[in-house]
């Protein structure tokens, strides 16, 4: 788990623990982010999920998340390879179409040269790949003065 992250265009301590595989019988606690299926299962069982976020993969249906948005502090979207762009559409849906106001976290193969596209699609939080220079990567956010989309 990274110690530092970029959040809201600043380097900051990484607060969340990504639990990509939830151990059998484990009860997630606030500050953890678990797979959507686990979150839904535990919620149906009446577990206290206050402060627990969800992971939604690019090939997963995002629709069930919509009803949960008010209860989710963070939605984490994985980039198994930086060239896999599916989660840009998830982020766009969450932020622009559904008005999600919590954090949208990118993790996995997250590199400096894609940060701007991610940020403009709705991500505000980034667990970058380990070898990335976080402070140098901040430059990605100020490369352009204006854009053609989303006025």
């Amino acid at each position, binding site marked *: 788990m990274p110690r530092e992250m970029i959040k809201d265009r600043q380097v900051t301590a990484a607060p969340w623990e990504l639990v990509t595989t939830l151990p059998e019988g484990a009860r997630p606690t606030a500050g953890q982010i678990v797979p959507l299926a686990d979150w839904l299962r535990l919620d149906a069982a009446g577990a206290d999920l206050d402060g627990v976020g969800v992971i939604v993969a690019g090939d997963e249906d995002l629709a069930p998340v919509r009803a949960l948005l008010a209860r989710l502090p963070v939605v984490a979207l994985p980039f198994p390879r930086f060239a896999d762009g599916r989660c840009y559409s998830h982020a766009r849906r969450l932020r622009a179409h559904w008005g999600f106001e919590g954090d949208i976290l990118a993790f996995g193969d997250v590199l400096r040269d894609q940060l701007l596209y991610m940020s403009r699609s709705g991500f505000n939080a980034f667990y970058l790949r380990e070898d990335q220079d976080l402070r140098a990567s901040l430059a990605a956010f100020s490369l*352009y003065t204006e854009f053609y989309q989303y006025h």
Partner: protein
Amino acid sequence: MYRYTPMDARFVRERVAEFRDQVRRRLAGELSEDEFRPLRLMNGLYLQRHAYMLRIAIPYGQLSSAQMRKLGYIAQRYDRGFGHFTTRQNIQFHWMALEEVPDVLMHLAEVEMNAIQTSGNCVRNITSDPFSGVAPDELVDVRPYCEILRQYFALHPEFMYLPRKFKFALTGAREDRAATCMHDVGIKAVLRDGQLGFEVSAGGGLGRTPRLGQVVRDFVPPEDLVSVSEAILRVYNLYGRRDNKFKARIKILVGELGIERFRAEVDREHAAIAHDKLDLARVAELQRYFEYDGYVADPDDGSAARRRAVDPDFDRWMTHNVQAHRVPGYHAVVLSLKPPGRPPGDLITEQFYAVADLMDRFNGGRCVTTYEQNLVLQDVRGADLSELYDALRALRLASPNIGTIQDLISCPGLDYCSLANSSSIPVAQEITERFADLDHAYELGFIHLKMSGCINACGHHHMGHIGILGIDKRGEEFYQLSLGGSAGGPGEGHPAIAEIIGPAVARDQVVDSVERLLDCYVEQRQGTESFIQTVRRVGLTPFKAAVYAEREAARAA
């Protein structure tokens, strides 16, 4: 033509600065080639057999004389003195050095050009009818819509890492001169009860799985054109296959879902954004850029007609290279980039500069590139035709061969491309040399021959009346012949994918085989039937016999 706003100009310069830094990090070893590859491709830069190739966008084919001169300068200063116009209205330079590319891009920015998204898995250069604005059969000038889409998808953050490349083509005319049928999204203007709209198709494409596009919406009001396009892209981005590069184009998704389910997904996606209407005042505003204000009252002094009567060469050029115009007395003139024996679609440095001068003298400083890899001066006065012809002839750009066997399409092939399995330019040269006699070419009539040096089909062989595909057989170059393809253009009838006629032939058999196909056509044709019409009427059998009879006989003996 469109001119950059201060925002466009700044945006393109900021893009160059971003890429310059990426090149610096690559050269410093901070970026791996795997990480750098998509970044350079999005900026038009390929690593080919001998050097880097830079593909520069010519949005929907529109070029100014200042841009043409700049391309000449780039050919001279940074390349080996030539550039290659592509079937998607772009231009390529094949001898680039990586460390110089940012400077080349700055030169381009000075004349309002860029190489943004000419490659990569993103929305590519948007192509259109080269006769937009002047064609007599035009319903609407689609260039404002092309520009709107170009801007909307320029660095669109959601769609820069699609499963695969994504190509739009638009036409506003009754005849489709933009090959919309074989694009990921093809957009055709239609009128319904006097109202303008667009028929939007998706899932066309060539490569190893050629498919014609299928209609997603038969009537999209202009104000919904961008949102419908976005909905299609979102469906593709989410559901397009990413497990296999060869199954990643939208044509595969449309095929696997079926058009009804695909349409339902698009409709669902569109419902979420349908409120976001295109402001039609913006279309009107952009339209002003494309209106030509150089028309004069008496454009034709009769000189061209008089010369035609006494100069057979000029008459042939008028017949084949000069096309109808919606304004009486004006003509659209096609500059043939297909002189026999030369690489199709190329200009050399001196020609860039000279053509730029002719654009200034005769065409308000503009020209258009075409799907067939030629150039068009769209607004030539009748009174100027004679003088223009003499100038073009001196430049070897007046070959009166448009629409003939000499006017073939070809990719660069093995000479440059690292994907290619086989040569295409030298074979194209051999074909045009074999049919260099114009009377013979005219006798063979209207025909589109299209050749690709590999299965990626940059030469659109699937759309050729005669298609030729270079393949590699145990280290030797072989060529697969196909017949009956059509991009659905004027005189071609409905769009169709060419059918392979038999085993691939050896390199030294290609030209003879083409000749046999054409001989067979001459035997079979009825009246004034064109090659494609004859193929459609008689089928492939006689053509197969013509090409393979000797081989079969030899095998039997």
